[in-house]
């Protein structure tokens, strides 16, 4: 038996030579990479328009959209349109998210609740909203109320489906743990179900946010005097391609920003996960 106490030499050499396996996951995040896609898209659009490959009748050139944007801004209260649209979308989204999450938890945690709630929501999901509007008009009139209810219903669906799915995907071992610890339903929901279903919920949020914006196009056809959806509807009737594209760009920008915001939240709220993404 030979035994020696090891005395470290504590060199100051900080050379780093690691063995690194080929990474199979996506690797580290590239900073600001989420700007690249949109910028490329813009570049292609500009190039296509400049070279005449994209005819202005089909898709207005970016610079003409800028002009149209300015015109809408100064002459047609574009800011007012955007704000009133956002207010509608936000209110509807808020209600929809609340309703969707509550229904998902109820139907996720009880088979009886599920059999009553789940079917009708899946059916609602399969039916075009546009076709349901007459019903909503009959029930809620054609004022603000109808618009907000419609948007709430539209954005409720993805929240419900994703939260429910996320909840049902929670590892059963955590439920066992909670059962042996002897907590009630309330604490179980708070400490296990909600955090466990959070990834699903957040994915639902990404869809709900864009759905609520898209819902504007539908509801603002009805008795709206302002709003981006209203602007697009009008422009479609007139065939004002440039104004339509202004509207689309606004949608694209808001949708993309909202989506990016949810994904950043996701990253922070799910810091406990070690996945391919981290």
């Amino acid at each position: 038996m030979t035994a020696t106490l090891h005395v470290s030499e504590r060199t100051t050499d900080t050379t780093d030579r690691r063995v690194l396996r080929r990474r199979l996951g996506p690797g580290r995040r590239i900073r600001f990479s989420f700007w690249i896609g949109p910028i490329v898209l813009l570049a292609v659009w500009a190039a296509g328009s400049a070279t005449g490959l994209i005819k202005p009748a089909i898709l207005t050139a970016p610079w003409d959209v800028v002009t149209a944007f300015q015109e809408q801004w100064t002459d047609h209260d574009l800011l007012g349109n955007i704000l009133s649209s956002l207010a509608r979308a936000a209110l509807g989204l808020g209600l929809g998210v609340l309703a969707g999450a509550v229904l998902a938890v109820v139907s996720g945690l009880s088979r009886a609740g599920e059999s009553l709630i789940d079917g009708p929501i899946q059916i609602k999901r399969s039916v075009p909203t546009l076709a349901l509007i007459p019903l909503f008009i009959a029930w809620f009139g054609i004022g603000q109320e109808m618009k907000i209810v419609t948007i709430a219903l539209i954005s409720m669906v993805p929240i419900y489906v994703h939260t429910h799915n996320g909840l049902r995907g929670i590892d059963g071992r955590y439920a066992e743990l909670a059962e042996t610890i002897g907590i009630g339903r309330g604490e179980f929901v708070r400490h296990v179900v909600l955090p466990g279903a959070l990834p699903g919920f957040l994915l639902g949020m990404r869809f709900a946010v864009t759905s609520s914006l898209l819902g504007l196009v539908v509801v603002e056809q009805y008795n709206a005097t302002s709003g981006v959806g209203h602007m697009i509807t009008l422009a479609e009737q007139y065939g004002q391609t440039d104004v339509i594209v202004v509207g689309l760009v606004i949608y694209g920008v808001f949708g993309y920003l909202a989506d990016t915001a949810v994904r950043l939240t996701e990253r922070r709220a799910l810091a406990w996960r070690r996945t391919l993404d981290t």
Partner: protein
Amino acid sequence: MAADPGHLITAPAVRVRNLHRSFSRNGGVLNGLDLDIAPGEFVALIGRSGTGKSTLLRALAGLDRDVEGYGQITVPGAVSVVFQDSRLLPWKRVLPNVVFGLRGADADRRGRDALAEVGLEGRERAWPYQLSGGEQQRVSLARSLVREPQLLLADEPFGALDALTRIRMHALLRKLCERHRPAVLLVTHDVDEAIALADRVIQLDDGVVRTDVRVDLTRRSRHDPRFAELRAFLLDELGVTEEDRR
């Protein structure tokens, strides 16, 4: 039955009769198991891998709803389980994991104390994934010990610990047992550990309690010849031959 009649004067804390459990395809795992554990008694459960030790613990913990079988089980109300996997909630930091479900204003303080006792002071705010295997196991242990159960079911709670830490955890568990006197059923693969801690060692085989020995050593020292004798007997029961043991 093996437990001496003196224990059965008071009603047992755990009473299992004729317990059968089986997973559809693999035949019976528990085949008519009987077991009594007196209040305050410390029982160590040994047995080959895959003999059904965890299955028995799950049955006692009330978690085997979807498993086929029958039998009669009685357990006390306040049960605490240390699972074989440490089963920390990944979305909770260490301290909230320890005090999860704990009520009372001093829950946090008690959690911190328990963490300190398992040697993890200062790691209260770490995420589970930031802990080493042994650290996770100790958090899981702290979570069980911070509660004051009438029955503690522990499934290899020291498996991932080094010798010194293990000895410290033994002491901690003994202290807790002296203070609250829970009935304990501890699964372990370490025969020495079983003898060192338990009042009784039972061995599971073929789905029943095959061996049931009382550990009545006065000083639990390896140097006690009866320790060695008991150890030899148990290893023999486990099928470890003299040849293997060299």
